[in-house]
C-alpha cells in the first residue's frame, strides 16, 4: 500500500504537534546568567550595519575637502598584469574584523569578487544578496537590487511603480530620477573588464522631516532585497554592471566624518576589485613543501607506515567534449599511518569499516546509483561536468532544485556545493550520504555505483549510510576529485585518524617543483 502525499502531510503535521511546547526555566535562567558575560557584537558603519549608532568623529574642513577630492577619483580597473598574484582568504560569512589581505567573496553571493582590504577594516557579513566591508567612516557594499523606493524621504509612498526594469540602464535611470536625491547623470564606464554605468548619489542635509512607516532607517534608496539608505551628507558612489546574469551594484559610501586615510583606503580597495578572479592562490591550508623524492605509494596490498608519493593523471576536455589525458601526471604525497592498505585509487584503513581516502577523476555520474544499469535516469550530461562548478553540481545532482519531479528511490542525499580552500586552490566541497536503508545486494549487479573515473574505474558505495566528503579542485586544465569516506560503523578513533591523515594528502599543480 502506498500512502497518498496529502495523507502523509496530515500525519506529519499531527506528529509534529506532539512534543514540548514550553521552555524550561533552567534554560532562560542560564541565558540570563550568561548575558553580562556575553559581549554584543557592534557593527561598523556601512550599508549592512547600523549607520546611526557610532559616535561621530569630528573632522576639520580640510579633511572634508580632501574627501571630496579623493572621492572624485574614477574607478580604476586593477592592472593585474604587473602585480604579484594574490593569496585569497575566503570572505567570512559573519560580521567580524578582517586582517589586512586579499579576500574572495563567493558563496552564497552569486558573483565571485576578489578585493584587498587594509588594516582596520571589518565585514558586516556575507549573504546571498549582499557582501559588505568597511571601516567607521566608509563602507563598500556589493549587492543586488530588485526594488527602489518611490520617494526615499516618504517611504509610505512605497516602491517605484511600475517596478524598475531588469537592465543596468533601467536601474541607473531609476536611481538618478529619485526625488530628493542629488544624483549625477549616469555615465558609461568600465569596471575591470566589464561595461558598467556609474553615478553618484548625495544624501540630504537632514532627514528630520522624512517619514518612515515601519521603524526602519530613513531615506532609503532601495528596499529589496536589502535596505540601502543615506544618512545626511553621505556620498554614495555607485557602479552598476552585469556579471554572469547577475545585475551587481557596488556602493561606496563616504560619511562626512570619514578621515582622509579612510577615503584613501576605500579608493585603494575599489582599485583592487577583481571579478571572477582567475589568478592567485587560496591561502594555504597547511601546504607542505614538496620534497625531492619519496617512495611510490603501492597500488595494492598493505602499506608500511611512511610518507609516499603518487601520480594522478588528470584530463582536459577538447571542444567536442573528448577527455584527453594530460601529458604529465600531477604529483601527490600522503603520509600513511599504521594498518592501511592500497585500494588502487587510494588507501583504506584495514578492517570492514575502516575510513578510506581516494584521489582521482570523475567522468560519469550515475543518477540512479542503485539501478545504475537498468534505470532510465542514465548519466549526468558529461558536458555539464567540464568545469569545477559543473562537476560539483553533478556530484550533488540529487539535491539540485528542479532536477527531478521524483528523484530515484535510493538516491544519496547531498549537500549544496560550497567554496573551500584545497591545495592552495579554490575548490568546491560536497557531502554525500548513502541511504541507510538501501540493500546493496538488490542493486544492479549488487553494486551501488556512484561514478566512474576517466579510466572506467567505478566508485562504488561501501555500504548503507556511508558518508562521503568530496573536494573538487580545478588544476586548470584538469579537475581533481578527492573523496574521504566513513561508514556508520567506523569507530571514533578511526574517524580521528582520517582527520589527521587528510592534511598530509597534497596534490601539487603541474607547475610546482617536481
Amino acid at each position, binding site marked *: 500500500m502506498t500512502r497518498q502525499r496529502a495523507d502523509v502531510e496530515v500525519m506529519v503535521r499531527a506528529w*509534529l*504537534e506532539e512534543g514540548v511546547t514550553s521552555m524550561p526555566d533552567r534554560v532562560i535562567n542560564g541565558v540570563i546568567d550568561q548575558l553580562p558575560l556575553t559581549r554584543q557584537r557592534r*557593527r561598523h558603519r556601512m550599508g549592512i*550595519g547600523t549607520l546611526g549608532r557610532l559616535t561621530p568623529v569630528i573632522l576639520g574642513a580640510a579633511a572634508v575637502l580632501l574627501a571630496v577630492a579623493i572621492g572624485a577619483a574614477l574607478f580604476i580597473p586593477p592592472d593585474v598584469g604587473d602585480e604579484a598574484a594574490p593569496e585569497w582568504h575566503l570572505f567570512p560569512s559573519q*560580521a567580524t574584523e578582517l586582517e589586512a589581505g586579499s579576500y574572495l567573496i563567493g558563496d552564497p553571493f552569486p558573483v565571485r569578487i576578489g578585493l584587498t582590504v587594509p588594516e582596520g577594516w571589518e565585514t558586516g557579513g556575507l549573504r546571498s544578496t549582499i557582501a559588505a566591508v568597511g571601516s567607521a567612516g566608509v563602507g563598500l557594499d556589493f549587492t543586488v537590487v530588485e526594488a527602489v523606493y518611490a520617494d526615499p524621504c516618504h517611504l509610505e509612498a512605497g516602491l517605484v511603480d511600475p517596478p524598475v526594469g531588469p537592465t543596468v540602464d533601467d536601474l541607473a535611470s531609476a536611481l538618478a530620477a529619485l526625488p530628493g536625491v542629488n544624483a549625477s547623470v549616469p555615465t558609461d564606464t568600465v569596471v575591470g573588464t566589464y561595461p558598467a554605468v556609474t553615478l553618484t548619489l548625495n544624501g540630504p542635509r537632514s532627514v528630520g522631516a522624512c517619514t518612515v512607516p515601519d*521603524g526602519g532607517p530613513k531615506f532609503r534608496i532601495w528596499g529589496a532585497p536589502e535596505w540601502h539608505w543615506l544618512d545626511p551628507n553621505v556620498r554614495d558612489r555607485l557602479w552598476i554592471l552585469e556579471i554572469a546574469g547577475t545585475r551587481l551594484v557596488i556602493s561606496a559610501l563616504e560619511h562626512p566624518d570619514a578621515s582622509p586615510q579612510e577615503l584613501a583606503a576605500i579608493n585603494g580597495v575599489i582599485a583592487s576589485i577583481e571579478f571572477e578572479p582567475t589568478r592567485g592562490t587560496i591561502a594555504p591550508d597547511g601546504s607542505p613543501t614538496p620534497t625531492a623524492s619519496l617512495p611510490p605509494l603501492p597500488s595494492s596490498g598493505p602499506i608500511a607506515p611512511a610518507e609516499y608519493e603518487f601520480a594522478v593523471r588528470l584530463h582536459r576536455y577538447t571542444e567536442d567534449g573528448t577527455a584527453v589525458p594530460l601529458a604529465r601526471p600531477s604529483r601527490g604525497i600522503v603520509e600513511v599511518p599504521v594498518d592501511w592498505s592500497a585500494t588502487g585509487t587510494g588507501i583504506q584503513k584495514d578492517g570492514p569499516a575502516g575510513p578510506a581516502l581516494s584521489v582521482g577523476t570523475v567522468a560519469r555520474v550515475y543518477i540512479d546509483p542503485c539501478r545504475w544499469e537498468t534505470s532510465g535516469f542514465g548519466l549526468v550530461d558529461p558536458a555539464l561536468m567540464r568545469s569545477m562548478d559543473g562537476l560539483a553540481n553533478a556530484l550533488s545532482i540529487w539535491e539540485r*532544485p528542479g532536477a527531478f519531479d521524483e528523484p530515484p528511490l535510493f538516491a544519496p542525499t547531498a549537500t549544496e556545493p560550497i567554496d573551500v580552500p584545497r591545495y592552495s586552490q579554490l575548490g568546491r566541497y560536497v557531502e554525500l550520504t548513502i541511504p541507510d536503508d538501501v540493500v546493496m545486494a538488490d542493486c544492479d549487479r549488487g553494486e551501488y555505483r556512484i561514478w566512474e573515473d576517466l579510466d572506467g574505474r567505478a566508485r562504488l558505495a561501501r555500504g548503507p549510510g556511508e558518508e562521503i566528503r568530496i573536494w573538487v579542485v580545478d588544476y586548470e586544465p584538469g579537475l581533481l576529485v578527492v573523496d574521504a569516506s566513513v561508514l556508520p560503523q567506523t569507530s571514533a578513533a578511526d574517524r580521528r585518524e582520517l582527520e589527521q591523515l587528510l592534511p598530509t594528502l597534497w596534490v601539487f599543480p603541474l607547475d610546482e617543483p617536481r
Partner: protein
Amino acid sequence: MDINLVARAQDGDEEAFESLALAIGDRLHAVAHRILRDLDLAEDATQQALLSIWRDLPGLRDPTKFEGWAYRVLVRVCYMEGRRSRAWAPNLHLLPSDDPVQADGAKLVIDRDELERGFRRLSIDHRAVVVLHHYLDMPLDRVAEVLDIPPGTVRSRLHYAMRALRAALDADARPSVREEAVR
C-alpha cells in the same frame, strides 16, 4: 513581536532582551525539540541560540524581521548540535508485544515510530524545512527567507524529506518477510 523591545535589546538593554527571550523562547525550544528529537539537546540548542541572538542582535538591520532571524540562528545552532552529536540519535524500534491492543491504536503507534525513524534519517537541513513549514505553518518563500537559501532549494528539500517520510511509512505497510513466510 514588540519592535521597541528589539531596538532596546540591540542597544544592550538586558531587561529588554530578557522579555524578548521569554516571548520567543517557548517557540524556539519547541522548534529545536522537533528538529533535534532530543530534549537535552533541544535545551542546549535553545540556550545557545538565545545567547547568539543577544550577541549578534546589534547587527540585525531590520527589527521587524527579528522573529525570522531568530529562527535562522536557532537552525544554525541545531545544525551544529546535530553535527557534534552524530551518535545521539538512537533508532527507535517498536518492540513486538504479545499484549492485545486495539488495531487502530497499534497502527497509530507504529506510524509514529516509523515517522520518528524516518525523520531521524533526515539531515538537519531537511528537518528544519519540514518543521518550519509543517509545524510553524511558514509558507515556503518565508522558509527560504528565514534559512537564507533559494526557494527552489526549500522545495527540493521538502520534497525529498516528505518522500523519505512517506517511504518510511510505506515500508511499514509492506508485509514483512516473516509475515510472507507464514502465509
